[in-house]
């Protein structure tokens, strides 16, 4: 497997203060990687650094052969990374279909293949394509948000706490969808609060604390690590 | 004779600067410290002017009023009436972003204008209320002008000291906290709407007082005495140019803008009539342009808001 994304000793934050201190991580092709850690560990911040939403003051971010450090989000989207924020991640007053269309805004030409792909992944959405997205349940909204991001055919999908506020049943469903998405050739980097479930499902994981790398490894290894367990898995 | 005329003009200008400075101070409470957009300054000004006129003038046929109360009662009445008008408007609009207040104050100023024009038994309509008493009005012309300027300056000084003290008190700190970070202030349990309402009412009261001072200086008040849009806008540019958030800036701005405004009027009045009329609108255009330039190139004004203890802290906090 080739490395798709790599962060090397990334330091940065919003404004002048640094939240991340020399954070490093990699994501390979078609890999599902999860970032876990206690509140305020800089998990979402690390993800935003990839997407150009942070002032990166040290280190570098490389994606698919390019140094993308300091790129603006617009350019990063076109390069093949799509980002799903944790909240406010849909256009509430637009229909599901229009949400997807906006996701493909930068794409020229025929979109039918992209629509087919998303609707195949999310058959529920196809049935309700004319429904305003704001009227959907939390889990379905998350699907719209992911669908919107997939419309540009990214190589890497960034998901910020996709299961926040969802019932265990929906959480399982979102994880299953992530596997399906990976099956279509997309790597996924996600931030999760539900550390235990996420580590069971992901290929690899990073544990961040206080803006620094603390542990890394396969999901199973991390779950077995006593220190990790004591830190925040509740023993 | 030449000197006499110049002195007279200077006194005249001094009184107007003092009155506009009061309006600018009032706006500074609302905008500079609470971030509230009042686009109906002339309305509160007019309410103050008419209230004091009704309370202090001699009785007249066909309209209520003529209570012949002391002038000082008229002035407090003016403040009270302006505050009373501000209260319901603030109560309704301050829950929302200041845009709504801007629209509503444009509306209230318009309604006040309509009332003044059409309620003859209250305001004597177009003829206005005349024969208002003026403190020291019995002196010689020049002495009386000078005495009135003295009164205006004393009132302005009192208002300045009170407002300045209030800004440095915990109340002022709280207002700035709310203006600069509404969410944090709310999280700290501040009653934001109530504080804003206070600021809006205090500011309106000062504007009402400005109106009263104006009416007694002229010994009369008529619907045509001020152009509402121009007056409101002049006060805005005074505050923004002088430095919003800074009371001294508000007063300085009033002086600078009023001098520019009235000197340019004298200059353009020398033009032949057909050009003089156009020149008035060109001056309006330029004063609008001045606002755009200040907003763009010197948004903090001539005298920026002083870095009070609490503010120094939050400003640095914001940057980090």
């Amino acid at each position, binding site marked *: 497997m080739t490395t798709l994304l790599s962060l090397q000793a990334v330091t940065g934050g919003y404004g002048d203060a640094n939240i991340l201190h020399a954070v490093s991580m990699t994501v390979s092709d078609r890999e599902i990687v999860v970032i876990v850690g206690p509140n305020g560990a800089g998990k979402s911040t690390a993800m935003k650094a990839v997407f150009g939403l942070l002032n990166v003051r040290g280190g570098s971010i490389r994606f698919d052969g390019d140094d993308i450090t300091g790129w603006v989000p617009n350019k990063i989207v076109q390069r093949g990374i799509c980002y799903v924020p944790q909240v*406010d991640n849909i256009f509430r007053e637009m229909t599901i279909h229009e949400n997807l269309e*906006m996701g493909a805004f930068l794409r020229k030409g025929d979109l039918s293949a992209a629509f087919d792909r998303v609707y195949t992944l999310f058959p529920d959405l196809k049935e309700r394509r004319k429904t305003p997205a704001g009227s959907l349940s939390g889990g379905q909204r998350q699907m719209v948000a992911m669908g919107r991001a997939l419309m540009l055919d990214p190589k890497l999908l960034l998901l910020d706490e996709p299961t926040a506020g969802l019932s265990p049943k929906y959480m399982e469903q979102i994880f299953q969808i992530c596997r399906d998405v990976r099956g279509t050739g997309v790597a996924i980097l996600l931030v999760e609060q539900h550390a235990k479930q996420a580590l069971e499902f992901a290929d690899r994981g990073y544990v961040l604390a206080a803006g620094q790398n603390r542990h890394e490894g396969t999901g199973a290894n991390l779950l077995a690590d006593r220190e990790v367990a004591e830190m925040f898995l509740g023993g | 004779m030449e000197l006499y005329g110049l002195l007279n003009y200077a006194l005249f200008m001094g009184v107007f600067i003092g009155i506009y400075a009061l309006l600018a101070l009032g706006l500074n409470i609302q905008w500079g410290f609470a971030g509230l957009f009042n686009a109906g300054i002339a309305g509160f000004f007019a309410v103050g002017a008419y209230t004091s006129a009704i309370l202090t003038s001699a009785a007249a046929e066909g309209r209520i009023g003529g209570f012949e109360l002391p002038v000082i009662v008229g002035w407090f009445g003016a403040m009270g009436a302006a505050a009373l008008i501000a209260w319901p408007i603030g109560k309704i609009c301050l829950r929302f972003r200041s845009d709504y207040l801007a629209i509503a104050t444009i509306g209230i100023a318009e309604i006040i204008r309509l009332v003044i024009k059409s309620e003859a038994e209250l305001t004597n309509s177009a003829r206005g209320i005349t024969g208002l008493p003026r403190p020291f009005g019995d002196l010689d012309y020049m002495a009386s002008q000078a005495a009135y300027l003295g009164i205006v300056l004393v009132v302005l000084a009192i208002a300045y000291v009170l407002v300045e003290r209030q800004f440095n008190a915990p109340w002022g700190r709280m207002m700035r906290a709310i203006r600069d970070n509404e969410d944090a202030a709310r999280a700290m349990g501040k009653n934001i709407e109530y504080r804003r309402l206070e600021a809006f009412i205090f500011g309106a009261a000062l504007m009402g007082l400005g109106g009263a001072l104006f009416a007694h200086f002229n010994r009369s008040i008529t619907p045509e005495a001020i152009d509402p849009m121009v007056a409101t806008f002049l006060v805005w540019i005074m505050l923004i140019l002088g430095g919003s958030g800074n009371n001294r800036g508000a007063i300085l701005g009033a002086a600078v803008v009023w001098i520019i405004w009235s000197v340019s009027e004298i200059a353009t009045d020398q033009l032949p009539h057909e050009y003089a009329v156009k020149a008035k609108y060109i001056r309006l255009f330029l004063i609008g342009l001045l606002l755009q330039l200040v907003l763009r190139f010197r948004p903090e004004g001539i005298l920026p808001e002083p870095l009070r203890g609490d503010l120094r802290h939050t400003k640095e906090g914001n940057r980090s």
Partner: protein
Amino acid sequence: MDFLELVNFYIIPGLVIGSIYALGAVGITLVFAILRYAHLAHGDLATLGAFLALAVVTGFGISPLAALPIAILGTAAVAVGIDKVFYEHLRERPKIVTVMASLGIALMVRAVVQVIWGVDSESYVKGIVRPDVYFGLRIRDREIYTVIAMIALVGVLQVFLTQSKWGKAMRAMSDNPNLALLSGIDNKKVVMLTWIIAGGLCAAAGVFLGINTELKSMMGWNMLLPMFAAAILGGVGRVEGAVLGGLIVGVAEELSVLVLPSEYKAATAFAILLFMLLVRPTGLLRGKVL
């Protein structure tokens, strides 16, 4: 008063002036929803549009309706220009600063009209137009044109907003600006489109007000409050709401004469505005509350 009288003297004039308010209110609601500030120069842009049409009418001797497209294009261009020169650099500052700037722009635009065209009342055509009678309804041709033109212009706008890529981008920007930017929607183009549409509709409002009444330098400023009342009554961000709001405000103003002295006609819009802010700030059609 019988029913026909009510319709002839209150409802029909109310719907006509309401259609004019609607044209302005649609622009206000779009600017409010997409750029997120109250644009106080909106009325004076309508004045400018009306006088641009007057220049075309007197210059080329054509009818005001034929001059309308030119006035729309001219005013749209001015609106885009004002945004580029005066509003664009304030975008990172608190929105209320732009509201203040727009108050200054209102004064500037009006001053330009007053310098070029003076302050006296003007009209497109001289003479009194008597209404035609259809089944007892007294309607003037120009009143029919006004309502039809409003429906046509708003209809075209609705098709644009719901069917075209850039129309949807405008709705997306109104709905969730951060996500719109993350999706790669070009904010600058959306802003420009918004001003083209808002400016064009302003001109239409001004021209139709001029056709139905007369042209004065304060005509637009006097429409500002009813237009904002209409936008908020309908629900900020709702195009169809702005139309509904405009018609209601227009008819309410005419009917107010039955209960209030006619001097206070202009107070109706203000009463509606405060009432809506008090009981239902989202408006009739659940718009945004900023």
